[in-house]
């Protein structure tokens, strides 16, 4: 089985290929309703999570809301 190396939140990770944004969230056990995903500084809207394919070396940011003022 193939693997991709992507940068998720600043750290290298191996993910099973082929991969999409949604698969990545599942792999990380994250609920898509609570996070927002950006690939290479492009935001992936939630309905497009399945269509957003990951490529080797992609820089992925997964953010959510935290306490702040």
């Amino acid at each position, binding site marked *: 089985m193939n693997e991709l190396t992507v940068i*998720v*939140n*600043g*750290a290298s990770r191996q993910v099973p290929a082929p991969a999409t944004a949604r698969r990545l969230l599942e792999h*990380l056990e*994250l609920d898509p309703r*609570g*996070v*927002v995903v*950006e690939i290479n*500084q492009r*935001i992936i*809207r*939630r309905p497009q999570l399945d269509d957003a394919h990951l490529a080797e070396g992609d820089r992925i*940011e*997964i*953010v*959510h*809301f*935290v*306490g*702040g*003022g």
Partner: protein
Amino acid sequence: MTSTAQPPRVELDQPLTIGGQQFTSRLLVGTGKYRTSAEMLATLESSGAEVVTVAVRRVDLDRSNEESLLHVLDPDRWFLLANTAGCYSAAEAVRYARLAREAGFNDFVKLEVIGDKDTLLPDVEGLLEATKTLAAEGFVVLAYTNDDLITALKLEDAGAAAVMPLASPIGSGLGLLSPYGIRTIKQRLAVPVIVDAGVGTASDACLTMEQGVDGILMNTALAEADHPPAMGHAMRHAVAAGRLAYLAGRMPRREIAVPSSPGSGMLDEQSS
């Protein structure tokens, strides 16, 4: 004093409205720096706030999910106002704002473009640029700024839905440094003015509202009180007090005493 005259009707206050949306409270509160989630929730409740600010940060992939704020804050109960805290350029702030909007709750953003790590004062150049960009994209921009009237006027022109001048630096608790500056901004702007940052205790909040502004946003004054839920309650009263006093119209100051009891009718006076 006659008993027949009617007291003047106290005008009912209008609710705070930003970007077309009405809010039930003029007190907006942050969600940072609380010791526990339970303490935060108790404080949010006691404050009576409807709008609560949140920050956008990376999910910590190495830790459990417990810190996800949405597990604590019900988005149906609270109006989540995302901020761009920690951003030092217009581009960075715009990026955070866009991410926040994708979370799907609303188009509001509390826009911060910080100019300096020590004072966390805003970079008004970057702020104006980001305000223009985001307003054009349909965001309801609440712009965190300093107490400079000229910048506030430009922010309004740039499309800000509300202007948020500081009382004093973020987290300082120094209170309202320039009542004059804040009052002047309020008098000149058409969009709501929400004072953000620097309020340290209830009298600061009360004095701030007495300048006529539309609301106050605070975080540290609550989270760092000895008893945050009690301070939340205090601030709820303080904001109401300041607002009502502003509407009621205070008595004049005078450097002379004036008795509250009648000067005539004293004993042993000789009748004329």
